[in-house]
């Protein structure tokens, strides 16, 4: 039985998809230096970890892999209620792919003495590969449950409702286990002013490659991003109007008829 449950949570300080802008002519999105923020589902992961601790005790350690600005994702995690914050960083962080991130999280987990339960978001808002959770689990030899919509902790392990396309599975795993959570699992709390203030004073522990026993060559990209572009799907953008709803409706009906999309 786990006496004092140790919970790890990965939080990504990812690209803010609501603020990216594409070049009008080329459609290319400039990623270097793009505004970043905490990835949406990762906040659900932190919230879930904090709720578990509030109910059952234990500690919550938020870990962010990234550049210096990722401190903001850690600050936010501490404001939600994480006990400890760990920044995993090194030169070249911007080129780290999901393989590198999973290896770094696995190394950090070992360096920090291991976790019983490790929570991640089901996918990051900017990249959404959904690979980091299962990759991390494979690296650690741990069980993994992806897409949890409900999570119950027990003395020896967890029970989760796992969301699939057409069904929901109830899955049980013993510790250690990596669980990825979707947006439906909870609503992350809005930290109070005091919690924010307190969190901004908490300095994260910083782990570099030397502390993790990794070399830069261990993290060499296996995948590189050539380009990111907004697909150009031309739309007619015709506004239909009329003197009454009935008139507008008839115009639309006629348009749909001439487009040949009606049955």
């Amino acid at each position: 039985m786990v006496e004092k449950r140790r919970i790890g949570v990965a939080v990504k300080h990812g690209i803010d998809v609501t603020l990216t802008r594409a070049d009008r002519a080329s459609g290319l999105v400039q990623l270097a230096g793009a505004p970043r923020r905490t990835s949406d589902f990762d906040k659900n992961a932190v919230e879930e970890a904090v709720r578990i601790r509030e109910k059952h005790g234990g500690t919550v350690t938020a870990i962010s892999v990234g550049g210096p600005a990722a401190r903001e994702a850690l600050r936010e995690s501490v404001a939600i209620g994480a006990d400890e914050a760990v920044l995993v960083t090194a030169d070249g962080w911007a080129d780290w792919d999901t393989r590198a991130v999973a290896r770094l999280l696995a190394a950090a987990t070992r360096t920090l003495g291991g976790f019983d339960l490790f929570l991640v978001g089901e996918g990051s808002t900017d990249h959404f590969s959904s690979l980091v959770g299962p990759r991390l689990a494979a690296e650690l030899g741990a069980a993994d449950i992806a897409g949890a919509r409900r999570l119950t902790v027990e003395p020896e392990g967890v029970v989760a409702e796992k969301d699939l396309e057409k069904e929901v599975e109830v899955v049980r795993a013993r510790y250690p286990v990596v669980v990825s959570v979707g947006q439906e699992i909870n609503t992350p709390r809005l930290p109070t002013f005091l919690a924010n203030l307190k969190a901004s004073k908490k300095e994260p522990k910083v782990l570099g490659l030397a502390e993790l026993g990794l070399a830069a060559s261990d993290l060499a990209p296996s995948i590189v991003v050539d380009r990111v572009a907004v697909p150009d799907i031309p739309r007619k953008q015709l506004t239909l109007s009329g003197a009454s709803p009935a008139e507008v409706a008839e115009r639309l009906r006629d348009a749909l008829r001439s487009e040949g999309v009606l049955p």
Partner: protein
Amino acid sequence: MSDEVILCYSEETELAADLVRIARQAAPTAGARVHAALLPGAPPGGAEQLGRAGAHAVHTVAGAAHPDPHVVAEQLRAVVASLNPTLIFLASTKRGREVAGRLAGSLDLPAATGVTGVRIETDGVRVDREALSGNAVATERIVRRPAIVAILPGTSAPNPVPAGAVEARSLAAPEVAPLTERTEVRPKPGGQLEIEKAERIVTIGRGLKKKEDLGLIEALARSLGAEVGCTRPLAAEAGWLTDDHWIGLTGHRVHPKLYVAVGVSGAVQHLVGMRSAQLVVAINTDANAPIFAQADYRIVGDLYAVVPALTKALGAG
């Protein structure tokens, strides 16, 4: 460069057959070989179906079926070990991505998910994948092989290319202790609708004031011969419609001939689900709603006035 050997797997044979057809197109050279794996628990007839799709060989793994992603990944790893493929194609479903991650982690392979296009080029394999919550398409280069490519269901698969005689290989599943136990499976409420296959869809968003008003939308859908879709808040938060109606990043991706968005603001996570619709109509009170930028025909107006009028106009023929 030596010829590609592509291994295709999905627990859904229909998706695996699509992967085979995509693989035959991606690696058209005479020496390239496309293999498919059938793991324990696969329904009968799979080998024939994969052969018809163009597989050169089908590997049947015999043993006990288990839904644990670790077990599935290890069974797949046994096929990988005996075949040494250059590429592994999986389906980018929820379970497919989980298996992709486990297999990639245990073999230390590059992996890409959410892939909508794959090209084998001289300096590496290029994949197109959804990025920025579906706002954009990222082109990524996989710099070493073998690599795992998880392809989104619905990605266009070319017509099958017959491979002639299909080689049948079999191997025994490795003994693997599962790391998770499934204690219950329940179909999602509703769950019968396959909205991906709908030719016409009327999607309702937060513009709908109460659940009882769904009748308005259903009536419009009937007059168009359409299915009813919805945005995330209506399914996941309000529960007014079941998940099989939900269109978006974490819901379903659709590609109908006609998409009518009613009271849908057009959050980026929704747009990714409907981007490949042929013709888009948007009805919204807010002239600045982002959905209008994605629309062919735009009506700025109150859905409670426009929708009944439209239903009537269509019904009147």
